[in-house]
């Protein structure tokens, strides 16, 4: 029994690593055999040195740090009120009816489209970067939180009120913990949105950050450097998701004991 579980674990890790490794390997072979133009598709093995140079000479870490900072700040500024609004929308129907059309309409707009508006309102500085990330995830988080509350079994509410819970206690002890799984589903999606939006924003209106770095290098046809930026963006998304999953396990211990 134990060996089966262990073998399964090993298989899982192997398979997780396999997909990117195979992809890189194919790319490497095609590039080295010049099946694809190595000028535009440099072999991945050559990117390591490019990355090192970038790190030392071009402050690559600075770009990563700036982008991460914007994502995290925007994420907090957008998701905390998003969760609060979502809980209220789930608990009280007038709040839900009032905000629903707005949420549904804004949810459908490609977030990068409101960048000019945000810049007009907040200027070209950091505030607008954080704001665009926050705005693009706010309703997404609110809507998934709301659905989490709505799908919660009505019995839990009855139990709480029967034992004397006030509205406030209902909010903290039933709606919030009950909606947590849905909240984290929303946050995971929001993380993807945040990454897309920040890279897009940095393409257009920034003088620092990983998006800016990718765009700069593309415009000067430094393809290798551009690829390093792309790969780092991928790694950032992956690492942030891992962090979020870690937080989810901490906040919802009852979930990780499943199976």
């Amino acid at each position, binding site marked *: 029994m134990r060996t089966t579980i262990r073998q399964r674990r090993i298989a899982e890790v192997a398979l997780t690593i396999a997909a990117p490794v195979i992809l890189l390997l194919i790319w490497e072979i095609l590039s080295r055999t010049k099946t694809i133009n190595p000028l535009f598709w440099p072999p991945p093995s050559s990117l390591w040195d490019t990355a090192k140079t970038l790190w030392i000479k071009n402050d690559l870490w600075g770009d990563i740090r700036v982008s991460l900072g914007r994502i995290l700040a925007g994420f907090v500024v957008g998701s905390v009120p998003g969760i609060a609004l979502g809980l209220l929308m789930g608990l009280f129907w007038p709040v839900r009816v009032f905000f629903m059309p707005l949420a549904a309409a804004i949810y459908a707009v490609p977030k990068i489209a409101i960048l000019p508006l945000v810049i007009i309102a907040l200027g070209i500085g950091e505030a607008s970067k954080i704001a665009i990330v926050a705005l693009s995830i706010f309703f997404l988080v609110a809507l998934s939180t709301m659905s989490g509350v709505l799908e919660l079994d009505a019995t839990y509410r*009855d*139990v709480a009120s*029967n034992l004397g819970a006030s509205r406030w206690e209902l909010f903290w002890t039933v709606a919030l*913990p009950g909606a*947590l799984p849905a909240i984290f589903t929303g946050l995971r999606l929001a993380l993807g949105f945040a990454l897309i939006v920040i890279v897009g924003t940095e393409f257009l209106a920034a003088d620092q950050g990983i998006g800016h770095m990718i765009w700069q290098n593309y415009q000067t046809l430094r393809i290798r450097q551009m690829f390093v930026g792309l790969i780092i963006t991928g790694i950032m998304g992956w690492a942030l998701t891992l962090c979020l999953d870690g937080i989810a396990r901490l906040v919802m211990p009852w979930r990780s*004991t499943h199976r």
Partner: protein
Amino acid sequence: MAARDLSFSSASTPAIVSSIGTQAKNGAASRSVLPGASVEARGVGRRFETARGPVDACRDIDLDVPAGSFTVIVGPSGCGKSTFLRMLAGLDHPTSGTLTLADGRGGAPSNAMVFQGRSLFPWLTLRQNVAYGLKLHGVPRKERGEQADALLATVGLHAFRRAYPHQVSEGMRQRVAIARALAVDPDLLLMDEPFGALDEQTRFLLQEELLRIWDASRKTVVFVTHSIDEAIVLADRIVIMSAQPGTIRATVDVPFARPRALMDVRSDPAFTALFTEIWAMVREEVTAARMAQEASMAR
């Protein structure tokens, strides 16, 4: 040996003392003797406004629940027995009639309800679930932990106190739900088909366990079930409700002495007689309910 624990409380009287709303005398007498919560319902009804017009879940309910008694309500599905229980719990309110709850000390009684189905908070451990009501009442952390542990020990689940609800069986979860209700030491314990989702063996064991716990406190209990067997083994008095709109069809006193050995109760000839008698009434109501439903479907 088998029937030693059994004696008839009111020796030769028929099992049915009263029907439709005239059962007050016994109740009034015992109320002055025993402390605890009592319930007095007069013409209680609950009407729901729906898109297809008003629907009466229950109406004209006259009922006295004496302090310290174990009352079981049986009736067909959808007869409004859960609605009535929710009104007793204060989760719903009558749209007609008066419902008076007294704690025997001149105040309003506290109550706690054990709900049917899944009612434990999945995000809390068993101990945290039991302590939940105490937390709301402002009991300090250490104290409520100790009380929760003691109650979990009473229902035999102390070893599982750190588990989450999904890690234990349905029967264990219902034991915790009972412990959670008892934790706030309610004057009135309300139980809405708490064993409805359990297999028969587990259900029989939990009935014995419930009576054991109840014998120690003799709180006033109102228990809703659709199982006649369960009603007879648990109750001092059984209230039989009619099909929708639910009203009281009859009240039956259960003669078995306490504390009860449920095996003995079930093997007693009086049990069979009671069962047959009650089933005859419930059967009529279930048939009526089904015909009403079929008629409304055909319309």
